[in-house]
């Protein structure tokens, strides 16, 4: 039995070596993707183009514009004379934000009962920059407000004390997108690699016409499944370790929790996806069909991983579905261990969910594939 399994595994590795570009593509494709995502999201958002329509043209209004520029969130695209220009620029996507300073801005600032106003227009079509712009503008205005109050109360700045919140962001101090996206990206790549190679296991031989030959050989269906699973596991796990090193050393994503725990859970998750991939493999008549099925399943899972949109803000029904998607629990575990240093005491609901789903999926897959092979 062992000998036959090894013979099959050896044959699979020879295929992989001959078709080296496929594993290479998955490995380096994954790493490249990570680099692209990592670098694109590594730095906080800055230099958003800003247009200013200054009806006031006073020292006060100029100082406001300079304060906005000093945040580094904005760069001044242009000072303009009419609203039409702003409208056009926004429509073309040339600018992210515009502010309109009314003619009485300086006057209202100076008067002791003045009521200065200001309009700001944001390009909501790009919600991430718009949010960053809003945050930066609110900061500038809050400090202007503080100065105004100090002046009106006729105090010196040292005498003033007000509400001074101390905000701290845990787990991702710099609010760096890279810390959030790269682990998710890596987790998904593990899913894709496993699914794809598992899906090719049988569809490839069926397409080439060699599957029948394999089936008349004295392999038991279990031997075939194990023999074909080993190479997939080796490739997917290698891929995971490489990506983890990359994320850790290049993007400085911390590994705060236990590395052995992470590896054990990654391995468990990998087996679940392996089972799924093999089912896709035996129902596919060709490699292309298997590939498309992987894409379909991968995309559906992607939706529930909380990567594109937080699961918490989905409708109730979809939130429930997310709970039965193994990739969702896997990404929670991955982020938990990497960023929060979480251990089993915290992660157990996800681990338990993964174990239950995994047992279910693997039992089903094993039955299904064995039946298809007999």
């Amino acid at each position: 039995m062992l000998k036959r399994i090894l013979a099959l595994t050896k044959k699979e590795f020879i295929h992989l070596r001959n078709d080296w570009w496929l594993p290479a593509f998955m490995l380096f494709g994954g790493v490249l993707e990570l680099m692209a995502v990592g670098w694109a999201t590594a730095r906080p958002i800055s230099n958003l183009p800003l247009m200013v329509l200054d009806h006031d043209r006073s020292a006060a209004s100029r100082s406001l514009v300079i304060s906005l520029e000093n945040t580094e969130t904005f760069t001044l695209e242009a000072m303009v004379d009419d609203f039409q220009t702003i409208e056009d620029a926004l429509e073309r996507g040339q600018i992210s934000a515009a502010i309109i300073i009314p003619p009485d801005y300086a006057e209202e600032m100076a008067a002791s009962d003045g009521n200065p106003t200001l309009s700001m227009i944001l390009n909501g079509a790009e919600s991430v920059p718009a949010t960053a712009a809003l945050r930066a503008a609110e900061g500038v205005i809050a400090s202007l407000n503080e100065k105004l109050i100090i002046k009106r109360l006729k105090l010196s700045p040292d005498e003033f004390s007000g509400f001074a919140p101390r905000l701290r962001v845990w787990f991702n101090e710099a609010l760096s997108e890279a810390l959030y996206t790269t682990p998710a990206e890596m987790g998904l790549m593990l899913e894709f690699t496993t699914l794809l190679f598992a899906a090719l296991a049988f569809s490839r031989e069926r397409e080439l016409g060699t599957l029948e030959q394999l089936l008349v050989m004295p392999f038991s269906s279990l031997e075939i499944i194990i023999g074909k699973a080993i190479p997939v596991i080796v490739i997917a796990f290698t891929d995971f370790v490489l990506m983890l090193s990359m994320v850790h050393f290049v993007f400085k994503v911390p590994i705060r929790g236990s590395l052995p725990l992470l590896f054990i859970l990654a391995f468990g998750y990998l087996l679940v996806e392996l089972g799924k991939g093999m089912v896709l493999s035996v129902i596919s008549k060709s490699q292309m069909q298997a590939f498309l099925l992987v894409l379909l399943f991968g995309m559906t899972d992607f939706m529930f991983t909380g990567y594109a949109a937080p699961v918490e803000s989905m409708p109730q029904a979809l939130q429930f579905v997310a709970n039965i998607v193994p990739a969702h629990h896997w990404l929670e575990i991955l982020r938990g261990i990497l960023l929060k240093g979480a251990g089993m005491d915290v992660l157990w609901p996800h681990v338990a969910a993964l174990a239950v789903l995994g047992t279910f999926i693997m039992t089903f897959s094993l039955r299904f594939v064995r039946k298809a092979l007999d």
Partner: protein
Amino acid sequence: MTPAIITNNLTKRFGDFTAVNGINFEAKRGEIFGFLGPNGSGKTTTIRMMLGLLAPSAGDVQALGISVKGNQAELQQRVGYMSQRFSLYNDLTVQQNLQFYGAAYGLNNTDLKSRIQDALVMAGLEGRENAKTKDLSGGWRQRLALSAAILHRPELIFLDEPTAGVDPISRRAFWDLLYQLVADGVSVFVTTHYMDEAEHCHRLAFIQRGNIIARGTPAEIKKNMMQGQVLEIASSDAVNTIKILRAAESLDLQEVELYGSLVHVVAQNVEKKKKDIQKLLKKEKIQIEDMAVIEASLEDVFIASMK
């Protein structure tokens, strides 16, 4: 000894389409049994049922005296198979393919070594162990596939159109190997649609649209199925000869077919019609170089029986 294969009312339906329709035949041990039929007639479907890859819709099949159903594990060790579509891994070398077959059948290392050597000799591939299988030409590849299929020394082998798309000399070489196997006591079940190969089989079954329409030795089939005799005509203009003879209804000819550069005429009492044919062709200014009643070939028989 029990027959190599017995089928009993073997039937396969795909939906409401019947691919194999209640066939019965027996293949003896140590013989080449030929399974003949045009494309889509049900040859591969029948083989797949005999191997247990496909469950029959009705009827059953025995191989080597045991029922295929439920005994696949035992039969797998005693039976070999060379599938219609390529049965070797193209990206593996000759040696790697043979090693995989050997290991799959659980041969130990010393056996495996000597058998791989035998297989290489048999396929004529000594010295080319490290060639990629996809780089071999069709004839070599099929001989290698056969050597691989018998690496575990099966008592019965199934070959599904093993010589399709192979040149005549390689086909001859392949059949020489089959005769060697039979001489060693192996039973061979082979499908083909080459008539000349059919003549080389010990026993035949002819399948058409899922039904066996003839069975027996080549000689029996010719005797039983052929109504009438074959007249072979060598003339100065074969194409016009056919036109003229087909148009001549008064002669009551069953078949008029081109056979290479010759014309074959099939009819009852053809000897008596020779004179009329001669007369007719002379009138049309076609010269007859030679004309003789010959023994029918299988091709004549099948063309006649397909009408």
